[in-house]
Every structure is written in structure tokens, then in C-alpha cells.
């Protein structure tokens, strides 16, 4: 592969216009982490199983390890770095801290994105809906209980909008 095969892709990342220089089939995950140095998005498996690489594209949750950059031309991407508003954490982030939703923290960025996505779609999810909504994100540390609790507590706060 040589540099000449690289293409320019323009998209918005966390509200800012960015130009990516990448091979069209390069993974969005690598473009975010390596080129934009947004390392909050993690790689756990590289095959769409763990959800550690979750980001929002036009408001939909995706595994960025499965998305070729060519697909995001013109799209709006939101990563974990774009979730807190300056110093103010999102209610989901706050709830994860308060209720033990993060242990080792490696699944946490993806989990927070998934939780926010869930609350965007379902304002007050039932326990079954929470379980279902997070089933694409694996956590090996928590046994999920504290994550469920964090999500429930987050909906009790106002301001859950992204």
C-alpha cells in the first residue's frame, strides 16, 4: 500500500469538521485513535463482538472497528470525548462514577455511549430494556449490576440528552 491510495474524507467529529487521510477501507476506529488521537474509543476484539469501540454516527450506535472510513464521509460522529460538556459530565457519566459502573474502565467509554444511545431512544427503560440495550457491550469486571444501576439512576436526573 502506498500513500497515493489514501483518500480525503470530511466528516464532523464531536461537532468539529475534520478531514481524514486514510485508505478507504481503513477502520474508523484507527482513524479516530491514530489520526485524530481520540484514544477514548477502545479496541477490545476488532470483530464487532465487544462494543468497546462504540461511537455514534448520525445518532446511531456502531462498532467503529467494523466501519470503513469511506462510509463516514459527511457524517456526524460522536465519540466519548464529545460527551461531557466542558467540565460538566453527562448524567450517565456522573452516574457511572457514583454507582460503581466503571471498574477497570476499558469497556466504559463504549458502555457510556451505549447507555446514552439507549436513553435517547427510550426515556425510562425497564430493566429488560436496559439489559437488551447494553447486550452488545461486554464488560468482564462488573457483572453488569452496577452498570444497570447507573443507567437507572441517570434517568432519574434531568438532562440526559446528548
Amino acid at each position: 500500500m502506498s500513500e497515493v491510495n489514501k483518500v480525503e474524507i470530511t466528516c464532523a467529529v464531536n461537532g468539529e469538521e475534520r478531514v481524514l487521510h486514510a485508505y478507504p477501507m481503513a477502520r474508523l476506529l484507527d482513524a479516530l485513535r491514530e489520526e485524530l488521537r481520540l484514544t477514548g474509543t477502545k479496541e477490545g476484539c476488532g470483530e464487532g463482538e465487544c462494543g468497546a469501540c462504540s461511537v455514534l454516527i448520525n445518532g446511531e450506535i456502531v462498532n467503529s472497528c467494523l466501519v470503513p472510513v469511506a462510509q463516514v464521509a459527511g457524517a456526524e460522529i460522536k465519540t466519548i470525548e464529545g460527551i461531557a460538556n466542558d467540565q460538566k459530565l453527562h448524567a450517565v457519566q456522573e452516574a457511572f462514577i457514583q454507582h460503581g459502573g466503571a471498574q477497570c474502565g476499558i469497556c466504559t467509554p463504549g458502555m457510556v455511549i451505549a447507555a446514552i444511545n439507549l436513553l435517547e431512544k427510550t426515556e425510562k427503560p425497564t430493566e429488560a430494556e436496559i439489559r437488551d440495550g447494553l447486550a452488545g457491550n461486554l464488560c468482564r469486571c462488573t457483572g453488569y449490576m452496577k452498570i444497570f444501576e447507573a443507567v437507572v439512576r441517570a434517568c432519574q436526573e434531568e438532562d440526559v440528552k446528548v
Partner: protein
Amino acid sequence: MSSPKTERRFVGKSVPRKEGRDKVTGAARYVDDIRFPEMLYGATVRTTSPRGRIKEIIFGENVPWDEFTIVTAKDIPGENYVALILNDQPYLVEEFFNHTEEPVLLLAHEDKFLVEKARRSIRFEIEEFSPVFTIEDSVNKREIIWGEDNVFKSFLVDKGNVDEVWESADVIVEGEYLTGAQEQLYIENNGMIAIANHEDGVTVWGSMQCPYYVHKALIKLFNLPEEKVRVVQTETGGGFGGKEEYPSMIAGHAALLSWKSGRPVKIIYDRAEDMAATTKRHPSHTRHRTAVSRDGKLLGMEIDFTVDGGAYATLSAVVLSRGTIHAAGPYLCPNVRIRSRAVATNAPPHGAFRGFGAPQSIFGLERHMDKIAKTLGLSPEEFRRRNFIQEGQTTATQQVIHEKVDLSGLMDRAFELSGYNEKREKFAEQNKSSRLKKGIGFASFMHGAGFTGSGEKYLESVVGAEATEQGNVRILAASTEIGQGTNTIFGQIASEALGIDYNLIEVAKPDTSNVPNSGPTVASRTCMIVGKLVESAALGLKQTLVGSGFLKDSGYTSEDFSNACRAYIEKHGALKSFSKYQQPEGINWDDEHYRGDAYGAYAWAVYVAEVTVDPTVYEAHVDDFVAVQEVGRVINPVLATGQIEGGVAQGIGYTLYENVVWRDGRMANNQMTNYIIPTSADIPPIRVFFAENPYAYGPAGAKGIGELPMDGAAPAILSAIENATGVSINHIPLVPESLMEELETETI
């Protein structure tokens, strides 16, 4: 500012995790998030068959090899072994190899993708030797693949005289129990970055549990003095034992590549490599022969426990030790003989995984206890109650239990919270007419905290505390935060000891150039053993401040304390205090006879599982889980509960989902798509309860907690499945195919 009183203000409270904010915002930096200028990417070329001799290495075509840094065993400046216990595992194969994932060659290049292409292009010309894959073949010496008899280590525990009980026993019950391998599956794969050269020595950054293990291994590998090797832990995305010893291997590899290339080198495993090549839980085989009286008293236990250690000794001796000591469980029996051994097979070495041998031997014991109860016509709970160990009685290693232990009470509590008795009745009735079978079962067990026997004495762990110029107190320890809450717990213990605000306590990042060796982060020892040292190191600071007149002995505020720190530093320079482990009085251990006080303290527990078995699709699902335990004083309820929940979830995976498929000594399903861990949809409500009984020698009364929850799920779930189906199953993992086999044989 906070009040000057010294009542407990931080211990027992769920203060939020110290590094929580960085973790939820994505700011926390794990090894793969770090990059150095001019950095190369390293890769490991591994053997592809289980046992043999490498005759030739064939480099593929169409790879610009002259652009690569290539390292072989010949490039090693020091010793070619990973220094640990027996030093039998090489960093790089010289000629002979013993499993399918042995590192032979290291490559580095600045283009990640090209490295991968180059790695795949390399072939070996090999002379194959006959391998051994099973415990049975290894024990029977089908081939000698390690030492003289394939045995890494064996133990004998002997209490009373078990040979005399068989004749007079009313009932003798025998049983055989098997457990499979299990992958730790931390979500962050292993990785290291190294900068190594002749002038500065070797520095590595990476994901790990035990910085001083890595340190020791690198000193040998490079033959460098201690101060020329520096190991820094980066934020670590889970360990569970899986990052106890293998990081020494990766660190060495990255450092060798950097040494040769003169550039920083990063090695990050992908999931497939991490799963196939790094350690897993030891598979095990347990045999029980037990003598009981008609009224349900244990008279004699003969236990034979074998674990599969894989190709090299690594930590197998220690895993075996813990498994052996836990093999007779929390029961009183006058005559016990436990024989155990760890044997070699041609699989990648098995290693540490939460519980460290105990989940394996406890599984066998608890299944066997159910079997004995059934043989006697007693309920499993009644049989346990008649044999639970009490204060003043002795364990299998003849340790007198000096703490108040009330397993019957824990059982009452667990049964009440789970509705055990009512459900036993209700399910029996329902199951008659229902296609889905429901059941409820339990396990009772204990787990020792800290290193076994005299281990802590030899470790001589040290913790420091220093005052900072900002007037804070910084804890210096090599104990790593791997998600379990080390930073937070240390903060709580120190603030409690000093009577100052939790936010004034900082915890230094483990970096061997800056923190003393507080021992490895394993064996449920961080809170109980290292935490106690944190407490005394912190108190040492205070003593100096008081002694030198900067602080009143009591009645000070956090602000006073900060001011005193600043004033001291201004006048005298640095203020540090160190504390070294001292074994509590009365702990005696005889290593030769494996007798005496195996652990300073035990955690005690009764876990109850409720299941539904679908006999048409052969699936078992856990519907509810109650975990009741006594772990001394709980320092942080949210963190402690999180530890139990996470451990139980791993235990559920171990029992029902996680099946390592072996093909010729290699893990064949080394992907998350076909090695299945529980998702949020699979895990039942896990309800956690603590009975508190402060332990005199633990910090603020705490004991260990990390491994305990791994022990109870498997036997409890299989007991529940037996209750649901009437079929007693003695092996895990119980994936649908094996459940089918079991249920089918039973109905034939």
C-alpha cells in the same frame, strides 16, 4: 474543613473511585493509547505445532526484510528465561519447543500492517516430537515432556490417619470431578512499550498486575543492575490473574526489539493472539473418597487433585498449593489426606486466574458433598450443617481457626434471602407438570487471603507514604489498580488512619523507579496485607509530624495536617515514611509437611443459585443469585459489591458458557465470536450481602475479597441443576452439548 474527630469517616463509605472521572470521559491512558516519536510496532512469530525442534526458519518473499528489526534468541544479552519460580520458560525458542504458541522470532517496523504481513509470511521447517495433551497421558508418562516425570510440583497434606477409617466407616462415597480451562478475557488485550539502550538501560510501560515481577525478569534478560531497569504500569483494563506473569514475556520482547533497533517499540496483542498464547485457568481433575458415619459426620477424606500446568512450570506450583489447601473446604474432618500434583502438557502454560486453583478443588468438593448427602438420605444443607468448621477447630492443614466463624448463620441468611426452602418445595411441585425445570442449589466455602503459609514473610512487602509540597499525602506502593479499586481503598485506609480528608490522599502510579515493592497484586492480598502497610506508613508520617512539633497529636483538622506537611518540607526537605510487613504473632507454617496456618484469615461464604433448565434445547439459565459472605470489615460497599458481582458473573461464565476448545494443544476458538462470556442479557440479578466481623490484623478490620466470588458459582449452579433435573453432573463447563449428553444418558 472536616471535623477533627477520629470516628470512622471514610472506611465503610462508598466514596467514588479515584480515577473514575478519567475512565468515564475516555481520558484514562491505557498502553495502546500511548505513542512515542519514532516508535516501531513489534510482532511475535510463534511455533505452529505442539512439540518439536526447529530446523530452519523460512522468510517469506515480497517483504522488504532489510527494513525490519529482527530478533532471535541469539540477540538476548542476558539469560534466555522468564525469571519467575523455576526459570524454565524461554523468552525465545533456541531450538526445541514445547507448545504451539512459543515465541521464536520478533519483528519490528514502523508500519503496523507491514509487520503483520511479514509475520504471516514466516514458515518453519520442523522436526515433530510426540506431544502430550491430557492430564491422564501426562500422569501415565505416555511421553516424558518435562523433567523426569512430567510433574512440576506435588503436595501431600496429612491429618490424622485416614487409612484407619475405611474399615469402620458406615458409608464410603467416591466421586470424580473435572473442570476445564478458562480464559481471563480482560477486555484490554496485553500490551507493552519499551525504550531500551546501553546508556539508559530498559524502561517499559504497560498493562500489568505485578511491576516487580516484570522488573525481576528484565534484570535477568538484559543482565542489568536493578537501577537500570524501570517498569511503569499504565492504566490496566482488567487482569483477573491473566496479567500476573505473562506481561514479563511481552515486556522482554518489546525491550529486545528496542535494544536492537534503538527506537521505542510497542507490542499490542490482538484478541486472537492474546487468547491463544497467554495463560488460562488450569484444567483440573479431582478424585474424592470419603468415609462418613450414618449420622452424617465426616470421618475421613482422601482427595487426589491434579492440575494441567501446560508446557512450563510458571506459577503452577503456587496455583496447586492454593487448590490443595482449599480442597477439603470449610468442614471439620479428623482424618484427611490430600495428594496433589501439577503436571506438564504440550499446551501454552496455564496460569493465574482469580481463585488460583481454589475454584477447581472447591468445585469437586462441593459436588461431592451433595453426592454424600444424597447417599446418606440427608438434605445437602443438613449434611453441611453437621460438618461446618467452628472456631477452635482445625482445618485439613491443622490450622486452628481463631476467628468467629458462623457458616450456619451465613447459610440461614442466604436461604432466607433467596427463598431457598420455599422454592425447593415449590419447584418440586411445579416441575411435575412443567416442561421447563426449575431448581435451586447452593455451595458453602471459604477462601484464604494473602500468600500461602510463609509466603508473606518471604515477600517482605514495603509501602511508603510521603508528604507532598501541596500538603497532600501520597501513598507509594507497587500494588496496581486493575479495576478492583486499589487507589480508592488505599485512599480510604490512609485518610481513616490519619483522620484527614480522603481527597488529600494521592496514590502514586506504580513505577519501580519511584515506589517500593509492596508485592504482587494477587491472592486477595492488596486490601488486607498491603492495606495494613498503607495504614502504618501513613501513621508513620503523622508520628514524625507530631514528634517534630508540627502537629498536635489529636484534635487537628485536615487543614492543620496539610499545613504541618508543608511546614515540615520547608524546614527539613522531604518527608517519607516506610512500613514493612511483619507477620502477626502466632502464625506458624511448616512448608515441608504442608501443615499449620495456611492463611492469616479466611473469608467465608454461602452462595445460592436458582436455575431454569430447558430440556428441549438443553440450556440452563441462572435466574437469580444470592451471595452472602463474611469478609471482615467492608471498606467500600460499592466497590466490594462490585467485586463480588463481577466474580460471580465470571463464575457463571465458567460454569455454563466458557468452553476452551482444544485442537492439538492449541485453543481453537480464540475469538470473542466463539468463546462466549456472559452478556448483560445472560446475567441474573446478583444479590450481594456482607456479614461483618472485623479482622484484628486487617486495615480497619478488613480481610481479602477479590478471589472469593469465583469459588461458589459453579458448584451452586450444578447443585441447582441437579435439583431441577435429578441429574448430578460433575464437570464444567456445562455447555448445551454436554448438558444434552448428560440428560440423554440419564433417560436411556
